[in-house]
């Protein structure tokens, strides 16, 4: 009897305890949606991997007073040794200071830059345990509509999380030196000045892009942000760390888009292709027998340098314009032999074999429409 009472009492106590347990825990478990928990988890996991970068340039005013000018950006830790991936335009020429999520400041060393893709790697000597490495994902399998999270330092405010979706993939963009950057990711996660160089992350916490540019008439986010795909970064980062630069293949020819109306006016047997304007004397194209233009002609409202060869294919892949030819050549490495299918000024077609050189690092494209490789 007594035992029975005790057991009933125990059962009640236990029941009450269970009830209290559930009352205490169910609301907190259900108060946040799965989506919110995902965001919170990602932020807590990856925030230590996102750094704020301040670049200070010392300038002098008219009376030679020293004026430090600061630019801010963001970066993501890609290696536990302290390598940080960011944008080339964040680095500038100044002294670099990196602030970690825990507030500690480090002086950073520039490791390598690639102005063609607007990427750069800097290094800090921070202890391993204070850094969280952001794993690199795959930007080729991205789908429009999937979540995109940006962590960065907008307007120098400090670490900020913004969310959105992938708005579009495969956009193209010109880097500051006029080079075409492809497969750009567009997102509606708010990206503002200062977010540059920061990571764009998917819902699994993998780096999918490097927030680089925005489209905006006002200078602040209007819901259209662009990120350089991580696959581009993966291709060049190791070489940036090892050598300080990425060696692009070099053809040594300035190319121009051949439009149908120009081709018609020049009585060429083709309609589309990459027309050679000039070749670098002694460069790979020159040695391979590719000929540049030698006279000027006015076609419509444009003055065009004509007389050069027209590239129709690179390694048997058809190219429609200068960017197409550059895209094909970019896939290769310095030292590779390529076969160019060309049409000469007099209409004869030919196949040339050219050994690609290494792009001189000071060469910059002169015009947006004209690529010099």
């Amino acid at each position, binding site marked *: 009897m007594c035992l029975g009472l005790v057991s009933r009492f125990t059962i009640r106590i236990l029941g009450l305890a269970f009830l209290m347990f559930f009352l205490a825990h169910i609301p907190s478990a259900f108060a946040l949606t799965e989506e919110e928990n995902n965001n919170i988890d990602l932020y807590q996991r990856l925030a230590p991997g996102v750094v704020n970068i301040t670049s200070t340039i010392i300038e002098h005013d008219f009376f030679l007073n020293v004026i430090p000018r600061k630019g801010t950006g963001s970066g993501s830790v890609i290696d536990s040794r302290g390598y940080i991936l960011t944008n080339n335009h964040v680095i500038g020429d100044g002294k670099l200071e990196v602030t970690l999520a825990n507030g500690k400041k480090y002086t950073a060393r520039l490791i390598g830059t690639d102005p063609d893709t607007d990427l750069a790697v800097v290094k800090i000597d921070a202890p391993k345990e204070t850094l969280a490495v952001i794993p690199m994902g795959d930007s080729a*399998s991205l789908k*429009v509509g999937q979540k995109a999270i940006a962590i960065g330092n907008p307007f120098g405010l400090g670490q900020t999380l913004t969310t959105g979706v992938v708005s579009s993939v495969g956009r193209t963009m010109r880097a500051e030196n006029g080079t075409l950057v492809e497969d750009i990711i567009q997102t509606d996660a708010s990206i503002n000045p200062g977010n540059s160089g920061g990571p764009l992350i998917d819902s699994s916490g993998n780096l999918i892009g490097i927030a680089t540019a925005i*489209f905006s008439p006002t200078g602040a986010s*209007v819901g259209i942000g662009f990120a350089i795909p991580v696959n581009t970064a993966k291709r060049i980062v190791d070489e940036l760390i090892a050598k300080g630069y990425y060696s692009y293949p070099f053809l040594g020819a300035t190319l121009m888009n051949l439009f149908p109306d120009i081709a018609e006016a020049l009585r060429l047997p083709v309609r589309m292709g990459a027309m050679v304007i000039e070749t670098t004397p002694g460069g790979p194209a020159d040695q391979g027998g590719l000929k540049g233009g030698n006279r000027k002609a006015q076609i419509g409202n444009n003055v065009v340098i004509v007389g050069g060869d027209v590239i129709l294919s690179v390694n048997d892949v058809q190219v429609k314009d200068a960017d197409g030819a550059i895209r094909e050549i970019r896939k290769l490495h310095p030292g590779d032999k390529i076969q160019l299918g060309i049409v000469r000024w007099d209409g004869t077609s030919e196949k040339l074999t050219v050994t690609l050189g290494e792009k001189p690092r000071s060469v910059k494209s002169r015009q947006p429409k004209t690529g010099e490789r």
Partner: protein
Amino acid sequence: MVLPFTFLFFASAFRGRVIAAFLLIYIAAAHSNVSALTPEEITTIRAYEKVAPSVVNITTHVCEAEFFFCAVPSIIGSGSGVVLKENGLIMTNSHVVAEARNIRVTTSDGRRLEARVISVDPDDDLALMKVDVGDKPLKAIVLGDSDTLRVGQRVLAVGNPFGLGQTLTSGIISMTGRTIKDQGRVFQNLIQTDAPINPGNSGGALINLDGELVGLCTAILSPTGSSIRIGFALPAARIKAAVPELMHPWHRIAGWVLAILLAVWVFRRIYRRQGRQYDEQTRDS
């Protein structure tokens, strides 16, 4: 065919390594997060993929008279539109096609088609266009129910902001039943959303997560002219109501003509009766 192969496989000296490799690949696949998407993302992706072929980009050329009254066909505007019927019937905002001389529609599969405006309703800011689709029909959008929308519900906007090309933006319904005034016109019962809507999104689709059209992106409130996340969309109910009228604009004209005829007839009867009474009165006196 299979049997000898399996036999060979199990007999081969490398089977241990092969099995180990397969196991490793399996484990790696099970633990990799590369393609793991949340249910929310899968819903969004599916909704976008459902409507993407039904949203078109619109480019307009406006003829402007320059100082010496020579026509300069230079100004290019951009907008969006939704496909209502597979035969190429496209709905957009009337302000997208207003004063446009040359309207070109780019479909999501990359075709460029000339569009012809069928009718315009500036009061509702709606316009109906027709493109010649040839033998490849477009995919028509599914019209949803805009009356059951609730504030806080997720919506997606698909359009062509600043002429960049097809773009998806996401947000929620900020409010329903908004009334806004624009240049003397009053638009009632609009949907307000915080999905970024920019110039060029006009005429684009606002969809729910089932991929159904709930609104047509029409206006924004902004001191700068670009999105500050206050956008307005015409509800789908308005579109449903306007389509028959826009498709047969002569119905409205016929209605007016009939009404005028009726009025004339009524007035004539009244005056004739009055005239007769007057005549009778004068004859009596």
